[in-house]
């Protein structure tokens, strides 16, 4: 191959860079999901309290908002991503223990976990194969998230089961849209940092799993 043949055009360079981000994102996502599952297992094994789980989740949010933006372009960012996903995994412990304790709870958790995996692979695969740009959904999805958060805040004090169910249904829809949106951002060059891309997809999966589990539990009559 001559030197001339090895020179990449700007579009080829962009495609290679995008493929690298996709590969790194999915590899890191797989590893962080395993790490998160291990931390959730540890949390269940040691019987972490709800208060400690909430502190772990708050720690993860703190890392996400305050530390990741400053470290996302360095090697330290990788440790921060593991910190975020590990703490969120720890935070899942008491909720998973609650579901596992009810009759047939193990099946519920396994179904929600498998369902989340299938939905993620299907939606992310759709975005990857069609290569469509779903960035036009951004405003709609973010406004939807804000409305869902406001409803969650209200329902913390009102404790209306039907509203809680409606919120979970809406969040499942929003997270399905977010998976399309986040995957399309990686493919179309809107997201060039694989650490940020991994955390975005991880959070989509995390929220999808929690709210799918809640929905399945409520409709199975076990909640």
């Amino acid at each position, binding site marked *: 191959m001559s030197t001339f043949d090895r020179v990449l055009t700007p579009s080829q360079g962009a495609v290679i860079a995008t493929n690298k981000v996709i590969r790194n994102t999915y590899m890191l996502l797989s590893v962080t999901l395993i790490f998160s599952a291990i931390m959730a297992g540890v949390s269940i094994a040691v019987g972490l309290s709800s208060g400690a789980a909430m502190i772990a989740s708050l720690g993860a949010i703190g890392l996400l908002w305050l530390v990741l933006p400053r470290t996302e372009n360095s090697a330290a960012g990788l440790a921060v991503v593991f910190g975020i996903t590990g703490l969120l995994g720890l935070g899942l412990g008491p909720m998973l223990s609650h579901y596992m304790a009810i009759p047939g709870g193990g099946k519920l958790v396994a179904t929600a976990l498998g369902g989340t995996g299938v939905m993620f692979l299907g939606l992310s695969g759709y975005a990857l194969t069609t290569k469509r740009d779903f960035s*036009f959904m951004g405003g709609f999805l*973010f406004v939807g998230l804000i409305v869902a958060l406001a409803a969650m805040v209200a329902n*913390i*004090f009102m404790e209306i089961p039907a509203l809680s169910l409606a919120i979970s249904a809406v969040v*499942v829809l929003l997270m*399905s849209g977010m998976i399309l949106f986040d995957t399309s951002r990686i493919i179309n060059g809107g997201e060039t940092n694989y650490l940020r891309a991994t955390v975005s997809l991880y959070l989509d999966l995390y929220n999808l799993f929690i709210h799918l589990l809640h*929905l399945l539990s409520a409709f199975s009559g076990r909640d």
Partner: protein
Amino acid sequence: MDLWMKIALAAVLGFMAIRLWPAATHMLKHGPKGTADDWRAVLLPIAAAVGFVILLIFMVRN
């Protein structure tokens, strides 16, 4: 849930909504607008996701 935990959780969720607000308004004002064809392309996978969730619900009910 204790009252203090409810208040803390509400504060965190409220703060999340406040943090998302600028991004949401920016995307609504300056983000790309989808055509009818774009939205149809979204409806297909979302409908499939809804159908799959209904299937999972039937699975756990039986």
